[in-house]
């Protein structure tokens, strides 16, 4: 059984939380639930309302986009990645399904706790912004290349 101190060590390795002092990390660890998912088990489902964000502690997860009957794995997430924060920040349904690829350990941070964290620690807010900005840049990049591809074909 893991104790809070083990989880604090794990959390400290997550770049987003590296600035937070130990006590606050302990509190965060206490407030979050550590969960184990079996291979193939769904962590969150596209279209559901979001009530929590997840930090991956161990293992790997797939990001799956569903279009009608078809589904497409668009990305893989690994250790120290944070996922699910968009739905709780913007109150929009989950934009993708997250599924365990192999045994997966996550730390589940509830919406309320996550929002408190952001307001208490500007550094965390900036970190989250950086993650989001990164993702936006990547998506924009992908959009450009897709458009370029289309233009080349057309």
């Amino acid at each position: 059984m893991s104790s809070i101190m083990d989880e604090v060590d794990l959390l400290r390795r997550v770049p987003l939380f590296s600035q937070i002092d130990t006590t606050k990390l302990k509190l965060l660890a206490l407030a979050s639930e550590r969960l184990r998912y079996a291979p193939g088990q769904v962590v969150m489902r596209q279209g559901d309302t979001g009530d929590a964000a997840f930090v991956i502690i161990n293992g790997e997860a797939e990001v799956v986009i569903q279009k009608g009957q078809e589904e497409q794995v668009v990305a893989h997430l690994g250790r120290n990645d944070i996922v699910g924060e968009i739905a709780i920040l913007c109150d929009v349904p989950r934009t993708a399904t997250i599924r365990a690829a192999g045994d997966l350990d996550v730390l589940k941070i509830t919406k309320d706790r996550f929002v408190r964290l952001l307001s208490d620690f500007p550094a965390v807010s900036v970190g989250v912004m950086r993650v989001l900005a990164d993702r936006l840049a990547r998506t924009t990049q992908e959009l450009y290349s897709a458009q370029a591809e289309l233009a080349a074909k057309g």
Partner: protein
Amino acid sequence: MSDHPLIPDAMEPSLARYIWRHTKAQQVWILAIVLLSMPTYFLALDLPKRIVNGPIQGRGFETPDATQTFMTVNVPYTDIVLYDGVELTRLGALALLCGMFLALVCVNGLFKFYINTYKGRLGERMLRRLRYELVDRVLRFPIPQFRKMKASEVSTMVKDEVEPLGGFIGDAFVLPVFLGGQAITALGFIIVQNFWLGALAAGIVFVQAVFIPRLRRILIKLAKQRQLSARQLSGRVGEIVEGITAVRTNDTSNWERSELTSRLGKIFLIRYEYYQKKFFIKFINNFLAQFTPFLFYSIGGYLAIRGSLDIGQLVAVIAAYKDLPSPVKELIDWDQQRVDVQVKYSQVTEQFGVDNMVDAKLQMPETGKVEPLTGRIEVSNLSVMDDSGAKLIETANYSGAITERVAIVGGVNSGAETFIDVLARLVPTTGGSIQIGGRQLGYMPESVTGRRIGYAASDGFLPQSSLEDSITYPLRHAPLRPREDLTAEDEQRLELERGETKLSGNTMLEYSDDWIDYDAARVSNEEELTDYILKLLKFVELDNDVHDLGLLAIVDSQEFPELADSILEARRKMRDKLEESGMSAHVESFDPDRYNNEATIGENLFFGRPVGREFADAAAYNHPYANRILKETGLDAKLYAMGIEIASTMHELFADLSPDDPLFDQFSFFKPEEMANYHGALSRHSETVFDAAPGDIRAMFMKLPFSYSEPKHRFGLMTEELRKAIVDARHAFRDNYPEDLEGAIAFYDPDAYNNASSVEDNVIFGRIASGIAEAPERIRALVLETLAGMGLDDTIRRAGLYFDIGTGGKRLSQAQRQKIGLVRALLKHPDLMLMNRALGGLDPRTQKILVERILKDAAGSDGNPPYGLLWVVSQPQLAELFDRVLVFKDGSLVEDGKPDELKARGGHFAKILA
């Protein structure tokens, strides 16, 4: 039925007459006893004088061996001697007289004992009678009366305001005679000793008896005000409780506080004035009482010195006087009490003597069969006004077969609801007539209207009970079958109770009998009734809800043994299923020999669920028995050390947290405001070893680990050694468990049903592992699957019938309450159903489904005859499903016909539907 007293409508205005009417014989008896006690009382007064004058002062014993004759008995007013008496010396006479004195004291005491007990019983009986009569009247009040009365005021009157009457009733006639007799005896005695001293005492008594009561009448007015204001206070408090949502949602709590303050202020002034007057009178009274001895000592002493009064006489006069003020004072107190209770009594009778009460005969218990209603409903020229004279219905006429299925359409205040309530006799008519099956509705006994007519409204009140008792309420009309499982002892006790009941003029209908009228539900026994209830629950779409309630229900296995057996079976099946599907790790079962990591230390130690207050969480560590076991097993020091660690971690984590942070509720071992306390204790004692720690510090820290569980808190405090120590302590706790705590904890036993756990927890019998994603959902699904697979769903629903619905049924949703209301109305197979927007709280789809089902049912099915419907529908569209529609508007019945015809006509109904 002579066993069932009919309480007259009017209340006797005079308390004295009311008491006399019901207790004549007993009052005369007790009077006789009191008079019988007088001679011994007089003798007891006379003896001291004879002892002092005779043996002590030596009168009649002038020589050492002189003797006197005692106890000569002769026939009064003659010289015939029946017994010569005994010759006694001075010492012998002293012994005899003192012995007689002692005997008289005993006899007097026994008289007092008997009289007081008798009076107490008499008073309690009358109080019981009065309370019964008051509530009997409440049961017969005309319904509009309830709009003027506050529930809490009525209960205060029945409970508190008549209470002092009980104490007075026993004394109503006896006390004045008894005390008056005593006073006159004592006075007479003094007069016999010395006329002038007697006359003095009599004069002062006279002043007291005349002057004081006059002063006291001022108090009456204040007493009345005091009673009224106290009653209003309880009415207001009741209103605050009932209207608490409005207070909280409007920020009016301070208005309520201020209103309360002003009310309490007024009550204070009234009471203060009352006390001032009361103690002033007491002062005068005491002064007069002390004034008399002054006269005795001065004048009596003067007379004794002068030699015109012997000392024995003076001592006797003073001894007799010692007994005089108290009866006089008590007499005056009695008079005050009389006035006081008469005020209370008349205040109560004013409130309970209401006009137009339901005739007591209409509520006579009827154990026989009630014939069904047949024929037609004829309403002619019906008009209804409310208390203020506003017209609710103006000359409505209706005629139809009872079995017709009629929808009533109309908005609020259209008269539609009033029409239904008039037919249910909840609203009195102002004019016109209503006949059902050829009989005037107003004269039909409630045994007919209450059994043959079903009524359901949107806001039916459900008193607190189990779901089953709530549903079967309409079947309790009269005691039908005596209980069969009575022992000879029970019988004897019941017999005794019945005797008392009869003497108090209460109803002789036996509460403990079986009142359920199976015939009315067209079933023949309890088993069939439950089946019928389950059928009805399905009929109103409540079966799934009741299934859910069944899983949550805490059921005593003795009441429902089949459930316990099947649930134990389900527990085993569940375990197998978990194994099969590789989910064993999802549940950590309760194993008597293993520490359950998912449970708290407290639960692991007691290894059961607390039932009573003895081991409820916060106080558990403090229980002497628990304390003893902790001490003997040495666990106390370990828990104390652990408590210190918990407290310091808590302090580290939570010190800077705002007290309203939800983490406190979720994880804290103590309240935010206790933080400073623990901080202080930590800074002083974090190094103190257990043996050196003061008791309160020990308690503070020892209680913390009880709610600690490693997976939840993850402070990393559990060691293998500690787990073992706790399991050992668990065994010690169980093995030495004292008999007198039996039932305080329902211990976990893998082979037994746990009476304090819910049905679902009994199936799982363990804690769901934390840290496995979706484990609770999966386990829930598995529980449902297991139970369904075993065909136990109906059994679970039966368990759901044990669910406690809470005060006013508040643990059910409004929709559930309305459905229960419908089940109650249907259960008795009425000939006519009156529905007053009874399903308004349900979603439109369910409303439609239920209306369709009931319409079909009402047409006659399953061998049941058809019944009629008069239904104020919440959605006008639903009216189209009925055979006939009545449209009310502004208190008038404006349209009446088949739905299609009305639609085609293009009148009100067509407009409402459009």
